[in-house]
């Protein structure tokens, strides 16, 4: 889990450098952390032989993060809704929901093997200039 904390800290730094306020930084760092946790835990299933690949970039108009694992793949359409009454008391299944809640765009791409998530947080100042 050390790598996850490093990824979270790096995402937080990028968000701070981009001028996001504290709440937005918290959201971005948490979303990226959740994506990294998913990659290690559900994607690679803690297999030490498998790695996660993370990239992060400030494009000037958005913060763009990618997190890829080497697991069996993930179909986001099959994930149970954590807000459904029958799922509220489940002990897991909220990570992707939080990522979608905190980021402006979330894209899934199937790799062979693995899954790549792309998380996008648009920068408000860039939008105001257009």
């Amino acid at each position, binding site marked *: 889990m050390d790598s996850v904390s490093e990824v979270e800290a790096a995402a937080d730094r990028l968000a701070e450098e981009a001028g996001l306020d504290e709440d937005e930084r918290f959201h971005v760092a948490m979303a990226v952390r959740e994506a990294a946790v998913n990659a290690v835990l559900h994607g690679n299933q803690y297999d030490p032989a498998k790695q996660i690949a993370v990239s992060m970039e400030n494009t000037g108009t958005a913060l763009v993060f990618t997190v890829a694992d080497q697991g069996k793949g993930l179909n986001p359409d099959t994930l149970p809704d954590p*807000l459904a009454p029958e799922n509220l008391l489940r002990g*897991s299944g909220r990570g992707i929901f939080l990522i979608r809640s905190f980021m402006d765009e979330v894209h899934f791409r199937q790799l062979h093997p693995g899954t790549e998530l792309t998380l996008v947080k648009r920068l408000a100042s860039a939008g105001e200039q257009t």
Partner: protein
Amino acid sequence: MALTIASREVDGVTVLDLSGRITLGEGSVQLRDAVRDLIGKGQKHILLNLEQVNYIDSSGLGELVSAYTTARNQEATLKLLKLTKKVHDLLQLTKLYTVFDIYDDEAKAIGSYR
């Protein structure tokens, strides 16, 4: 900062004062062990004081839910006290605010077990 847990008794209620982060690998296991230990000893009234918990991730949220259901299944009651804004917002977002009995005032929380 990892999670630290201090336990105290107030009028028959065990208050766990949590401080730090409740995340996968940093606090969720400690929380699980602490709650299960209390329930194993027959404690029926458990109050989690989250005033000093400034970060919780999806695993930590799941651990709170598991603690709640574990307590309920053993006919114990687990409630929450003094959420920070971040934790409050996360519980609202995930609709877990509707699951837990949540208090801002410790005396009222303690009194609610009577």
